């Protein structure tokens, strides 16, 4: 069996271990659905209700081309969940390993350290997909959300976005290894990344000095394409350009993320600071 195949087997084994651990804490899995619902969706929907005219989100329609507020927000949460996977499941898990003192042991195994990020990307991605499916179901059943059949056309965009999140996971994991007390960093950057991508509101309302950052994030295009196909919203750019940008940014992030992660890991091994926290 080739090296790559062995690493993929290891990644799947890591993912299975993470999923098994997640299943041991069913309440935590409930939180994956409940937290976005009460912390983000319900307050946002009620804010939207207070700006509605005759029960319609006419303001949102003037900005995006759809008055389907619930659909707009629930689809945003799908991409928001992916971002959360990169920051918390892929990157912050190294901090948890540091805390319980198992980071050095796992890195002494013949598996490459970056495979641990990949394994957690698989498990985190599966949990995030499951939570998103439940949330969309709840949106359709209880919150008057509707999504068109075009949703399926956006699935490749979601896969590309997930791939780009592996790159982001590498970058954030590097920061986690260096910072040692990264809770605030991860929490704040996760929030900013999701917000600037437009998961909660149209990118058009971002201040002028933040807007260029939005165009550099692959998730901006993923969430936009998702809404274009599923809700018929006006696209940010020509969809063909958005697909191209998403593909290029995803490839770039994976490549850069891997290099940065390898260098960080090498530097920490040289300095002997891997297990310090």
């Amino acid at each position: 069996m080739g090296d790559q195949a062995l690493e993929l087997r290891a990644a799947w084994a890591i993912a299975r271990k993470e999923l098994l651990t997640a299943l041991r804490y069913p309440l935590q899995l409930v939180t994956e659905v409940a937290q976005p619902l009460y912390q983000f969706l319900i307050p946002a929907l009620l804010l939207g209700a207070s700006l509605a005219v005759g029960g319609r989100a006419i303001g949102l329609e003037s900005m995006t081309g759809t008055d389907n507020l619930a659909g707009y927000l629930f689809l945003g949460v799908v991409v928001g969940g992916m971002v959360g996977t990169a920051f918390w499941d892929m990157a912050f898990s190294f901090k948890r390993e540091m805390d319980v003192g198992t980071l050095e042991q796992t890195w002494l195994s013949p598996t490459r350290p970056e495979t641990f990020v990949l394994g957690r990307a698989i498990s985190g991605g599966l949990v995030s997909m499951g939570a998103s499916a439940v949330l969309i179901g709840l949106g359709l059943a209880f919150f008057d959300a509707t999504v068109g059949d075009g949703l399926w056309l956006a699935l490749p965009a979601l896969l590309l976005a997930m791939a780009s999140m592996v790159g982001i996971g590498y970058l954030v994991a590097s920061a986690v290894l260096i910072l040692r007390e990264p809770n605030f960093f991860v929490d704040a950057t996760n929030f900013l990344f999701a917000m600037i991508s437009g998961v909660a509101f149209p990118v058009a309302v971002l201040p002028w000095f933040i807007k260029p950052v939005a165009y550099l994030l692959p998730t901006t295009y993923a969430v936009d394409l998702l809404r274009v196909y599923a809700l018929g919203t006006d696209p940010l750019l020509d969809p063909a350009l958005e697909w191209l940008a998403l593909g290029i940014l995803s490839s770039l992030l994976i490549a850069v993320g891997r290099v940065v992660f390898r260098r960080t890991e090498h530097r920490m091994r040289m300095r002997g600071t891997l297990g310090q926290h």
Partner: protein
Amino acid sequence: MSTLLGDLRAFAAAGAKEFRILRRYPTLFLGFLFWPIVLPFAYVLQARGFAGDSAEASAAFASRAGTSDVVGFLFLGFAAYMWISMILWGPGTALRTEQVRGSLEALFLTPASRLVILFGPAFSQIVWALYMFGLVGAAMVFVFGIHIGLMEALRALAIIAVSVPALYGMGALFASVVLRFGEVSALVQTVRGVFTAFCGMTFPIIVLPEWGRAVALSLPPTYLIGGLRSALLAEADLVSLVPDMAILLATGLFLCGAAVVAFRTTERYARRGGRLAQY
């Protein structure tokens, strides 16, 4: 008298200890600076996205909320939200941390009153709450150009002061849950969820269905948020705020009493079963 003085000293010492621990973790200060501004600002952007260019949508908001000042409305809602989060996590988490550190039994062996153990850690949080409200107020005035006069600020402070017993009573009830079950996270998340969904942090409660409004009016944070908005955005005088303040005060007295009874009962349970330090 000497016991009372001793307890007051212990109370101050408990507050000072919490403050000293906070000082050891400077990234926590970054959080105190970041979230009170960035979190409500994200909702301000959301409101702009939902209002679009529509004057009708903005007018609809003003007629429901009683103010056209969306920025002030959201910043005040979130200042209250963050204070409540701090309190819900505060006393319960403080006891839980003592359990995990193995210092809870030593704490209970001191001659200090249980009230000190229950409310002491929360004392330092009042300083943080005032800091946070100050920061939000400064952002509203200097960044968003909202006028807040001295009298309005004093009225808002009065609302915050009468909310203290109700909110810290709730926090202390959570501390009892820690002693009974050894875990508080799920309950805190649930209660915070209920407050977020009903108390009007991002919306006027008039948009809730009738049963939702009834739930909202039974929860103390609704009166805190409503009072702050009335005092600072609608320039309501103190007399018109008295009914809300009376409800907050009465709820506070009830919750603090309930917390003391619950804490004594659970402490007796924990001591009899030898569960005090188990987690």
